């Protein structure tokens, strides 16, 4: 198991929410990333994420987001801290990711020390479809580069635990 995990969330049959599914597949095809990071797609949230988060030091969450303040396809990249709005990563009947992490730590589970988030502004996450909208589909390539960059940085000695918040 690598100490670095790229965890792609979403729903593979819910239009743009399939972004994480497609990105995970593309990452898993890249031989140069082999051994450097674990890549996993999980149509899960909250409690169900706990076992996946265990025993990794560095975590990148990939997901879709609807802020309404950016064009569809925009890549948001930010470190997840206590101030990160949990609403971005919460699902019904579950607990939010920050709560899952806090719970894991409270229960003595080894949770990641450092978490970054790559979230793509979605246009449609309510229509059942295996097709993403064009702007979100087009965000796949730049997102792949960003993730590769994140993996490289997280493995470097200069790593200090996260990117500066920025929006492309």
């Amino acid at each position, binding site marked *: 198991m690598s100490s670095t995990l790229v965890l792609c969330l979403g729903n593979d049959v819910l239009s743009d929410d399939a972004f994480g599914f497609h990105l995970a597949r593309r990452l898993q095809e890249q031989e140069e990333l082999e051994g450097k990071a674990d890549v996993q797609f999980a149509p899960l949230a909250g409690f169900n994420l706990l*076992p996946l988060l265990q025993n990794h030091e560095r975590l990148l969450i990939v997901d879709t987001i609807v802020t309404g303040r950016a064009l569809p396809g925009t890549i948001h990249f930010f470190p997840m801290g206590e101030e990160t709005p949990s609403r971005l990563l919460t699902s019904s009947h579950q607990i939010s990711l920050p709560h899952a992490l806090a719970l894991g730590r409270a229960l003595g589970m080894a949770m990641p020390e450092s978490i970054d988030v790559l979230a793509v502004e979605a246009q449609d996450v309510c229509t059942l479809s295996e097709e993403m909208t064009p702007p979100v589909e087009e965000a796949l390539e730049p997102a792949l580069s960003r993730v590769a960059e994140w993996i490289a940085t997280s493995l470097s000695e200069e790593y200090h635990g996260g990117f500066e918040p920025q929006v492309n």
Partner: protein
Amino acid sequence: MKEIVIDPITRLEGHGKIHLFVKDDGNLANAYFQVPELRGFERFCVGRPVEEMCRITTRICGVCPDAHHMAAAKAADAVYGVTIPSAARKLRELMYNGFYAGDHTTHFYALGGPDFVCGPDAPKAERNILGVIAKVGLDAGKAVIAQRARGQRIIEIIGGKKVHPVTSLPGGLSKRVTKEEQQEVIEIGRQMVEFGKFTIKVLNDIVLANKAYVDLILSDMFTHKTYNMGLVDANNKVTFYDGMVRVTGPDGKERHKYEPRDYLQYVAEHVEPYSYLKYPYLKQVGWKGMVDGIESGVYKASPLSRLNVSDGMATPLAQAEYERFYETLTGDRSGRTPVHSTLATHWARVVELVFACEAVLQQAQDDEITSDKVLNPPTGIVGEGVGIVEAPRGTLTHHYKTDGNGIITEANLIVGTTNNNAAISMSIKKAAEGLIRAGQPITDGVLNRIEMAFRAYDPCFGCATHSLPGEMPLELIIHEAESGEVIQTVRRF
């Protein structure tokens, strides 16, 4: 008239709203609850093989994928006119009870529990699973996590994957269970029963021992005398996987009892002009608006409803809890007098949790589950099928029509939460009455009490929105009805 909107801004912004219509005198005229719905389901299904649905529909709802898996599997069995082998039926039911044991645990400890364990007026930072652990101890947290893992292990053994099962096919299951796996499930069942006993103790010590909470459960604010719906077995006991649909009246008397395939004779859907939402009601009673009483076709389908329509539980510990539930709340331990207090749903969920745990242990000990014969391959096709199971949050119906090759031509779903749309709106109205007044400050505690009214139903928001206590980002806007001018905004995010 003024309109107040409580709008949970979520990962999927703009979905899930509470509309409160306030008259000029400050009184509440009406309340509506809107949950987001996934679009395009029918279009998505049409043209796909019906046997795919039990794998695809697990993606419709990240909350109860197992319920969709089971309802779709049963509908596909019916489409092909095939009776599944006895071992496969037992395995599906065992897996489903394992799922219930985990799902009800999540709700009691992480979602509904904080209102009672921490208290409805506790600061929102404490009103969550961490607050529950702070109150009942770290070991309880570990026990909850372990209980969820047990449920997932059962799903993995029978369903092939931990969260989203994949093994049901028309005619049964694609894999059998070994004797070693049976032994593992038996041990899991034993641990689950112990967890059930532990949960009864938590309920007793922290919730029922606090008179204020019991008074809150029984308060008029959270009471609706509606019809109830749920599946029952041959002895009219609560069942989750298979049975007949029983409907009882506000008086507790049986009104209908029917086979799932006949559901359209009994259930119709009303559409309000302001909303895309459907409001199912009892066809033979009729839609009279969002009101309770024997003349109104509004019904509830929830853990509380399942207890109300049944004559008891099929396992001993759960039966004892069933009797204590009714004895405490109605004075009649037989259960013939229904409980109409919405907040009692949390307690009903604990009764069901105990039942699910006992059922796992009981069913795991049946040696037939290791039989090789778990699939009866279909040999013909009927072309239409209905599958009904009890999802944790209500009766779940899948209905498919196909062509001669099993390709879907038409699909209809009534999901657990949808059954309760009218009742949830009624509960919100009652909770908001007296709490919301134009011009008055709207505190976090007020918002939480309104949330409590629908949280008891454990509503399922299709698009992964959320109802976490203390977490749900809310926006409440009071408008002047005539001008549309915003006169007050309260945000909680």
